[in-house]
């Protein structure tokens, strides 16, 4: 099967200082790839490059990011805006912060949807409710009519995922989507992302420092350290039988619950 997203020897620099070196990976349709690493490893920078979110001083100085025949770093900001949303979706660490506090969730989702396609309010409501139901919300209407502050942090995050999925992107990028959440809610968010993949066949790239989250949902893992790839392979192999010393140190440091 042909990959949907391909990173080919990507270097990224901020203000001329290189922070990511030689990152390559392929993402198949429906695949979940986890990128793990500690702070400063450049893991978030890697996905920001695909979304055009590197900011004014960041550049992909070498390498290519191929998506449907387009080399993403060479696209103009206008072309990038057309892709962001309908093709490439994004979830952030705290979805709550990206909602405007004084308008209902529904109104904001509708607005972001009309940016990309012409859709009537009734049509939108129908689609949104259907989607919310699919990813586990029983009463979609109530969610659409609530204000962000009326939802808990975990709910906000799940609504954030729903918001990204409304435009049915082929690839969903998630930057530390569970890090601000309590463990009991983390599990719900992970389950919701798995449900998204099952229902829509979306490919997901999830960046996190939480090895537990990776173990629970990723097919493949890319381990990063100091801007470089340390290990890239199938999740079970990397987590249970790492080849590299650094990965071994990392895995040994993760506190694991002894249950038996």
């Amino acid at each position, binding site marked *: 099967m042909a990959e949907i997203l391909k990173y*080919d*020897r*990507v270097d990224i*620099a901020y*203000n*001329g200082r290189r922070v990511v070196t030689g990152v390559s990976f392929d993402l198949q349709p429906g695949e979940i790839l986890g990128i793990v690493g500690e702070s400063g490893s450049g893991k978030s920078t890697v996905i920001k490059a695909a979304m055009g979110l590197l900011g*004014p*001083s*960041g*550049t*992909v*100085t*070498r*390498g*290519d990011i191929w998506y449907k025949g387009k*080399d993403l*770093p*060479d696209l103009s900001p206008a072309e990038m805006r057309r892709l962001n949303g309908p093709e490439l979706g994004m979830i952030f660490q705290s979805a709550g912060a990206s909602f405007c506090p004084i308008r209902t969730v529904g109104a904001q989702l509708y607005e972001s949807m009309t940016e990309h396609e012409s859709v009537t309010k009734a049509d939108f409501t129908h689609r949104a409710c259907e989607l919310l139901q699919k990813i586990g919300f029983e009463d979609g209407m109530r969610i659409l009519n609530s204000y962000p502050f009326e939802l808990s942090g975990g709910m906000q995050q799940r609504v954030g995922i729903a918001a990204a999925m409304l435009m049915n992107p082929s690839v969903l990028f998630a930057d530390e989507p569970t890090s601000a959440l309590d463990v009991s809610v983390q599990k719900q968010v992970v389950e919701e992302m798995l449900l998204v993949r099952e229902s829509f066949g979306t490919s997901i790239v999830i960046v996190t420092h939480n090895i537990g989250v990776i173990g629970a949902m990723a097919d493949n893992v890319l381990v990063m350290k100091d801007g470089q790839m340390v290990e890239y392979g199938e999740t079970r192999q990397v987590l249970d039988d790492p080849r590299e010393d650094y990965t071994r140190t990392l895995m040994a440091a993760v506190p694991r619950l002894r249950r038996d």
Partner: protein
Amino acid sequence: MTPTVRKPKIIKNSVRTRLIVFGILAVLLVICSLLSDHLTPYDPYLQDLSNAKAAPSQQHVFGTDRYGRDMLSRVIVGSRTSIFSTLLLVAIITAVGTVIGVFCGWHGKKIDTVLMRISDMFLAFPGLVFALAVAGVLGGGLHNAIFALAAISWPKYARIARSQTLAQKETPYLRAARLSGSGTVKMLAKHVLPNIIGPILVTSMLDIGTMMMELAGLSFLGLGAKPPIAEWGSMMSENRALFTTVPWITLAPGLAIFISVMIFNLLGDTVRDYADPRTRGR
């Protein structure tokens, strides 16, 4: 296929350069006003009625006033009154406002509510009306003008200092200092004040221009500096009647106010950008 190579974008940091440029300009201005006695081409108080209301010329760059006094010399001498009274005023409101604000924020409770309601009252007062009232009670003059403006301007600083202090109270390092056995005075002096003074100083820098205008405005209305003391606002006022016949006569003090206010405003803006770490890197 070989990977594409692209040129990195490098964004230069211009805030520091701006800070240096405007800083130097402001310092020059202050030095000028300090040395004003030695910089004047003529005696600013020397009357020469035979040469009154002269147009700008080689001898008198900005012309002379109705008593034949050289306008350029008067503007230079006036800088001392204008700039120093402004700086004094800003220093007073910064100090008074900060002390009250820190006290309110730290202490809280009833005294905080009372002082903040008082500051609300002053904020609700139209500045000029209050200054007129003060001048009416205490009489005109530069000192009373400064007093009047200070009385209505401190609440802004008190509010900033109060909210900054409230934020500081919640910081882990202040809690750590408390656990280290530091008393109130020590915590305020060592940790709170140094950390809140930045935003307050930025506000004072931005206020220098405004205060200079307000003081000049009061002098223009005859409530500030009294003749024959050279002060920019009162100079404009003195010569206002002649504006239709000899239009250049208000040019010198007007320009002086314009340029100094501009320099201090730009400096204030730059200091604000520099103090904010998010813009410092740009």
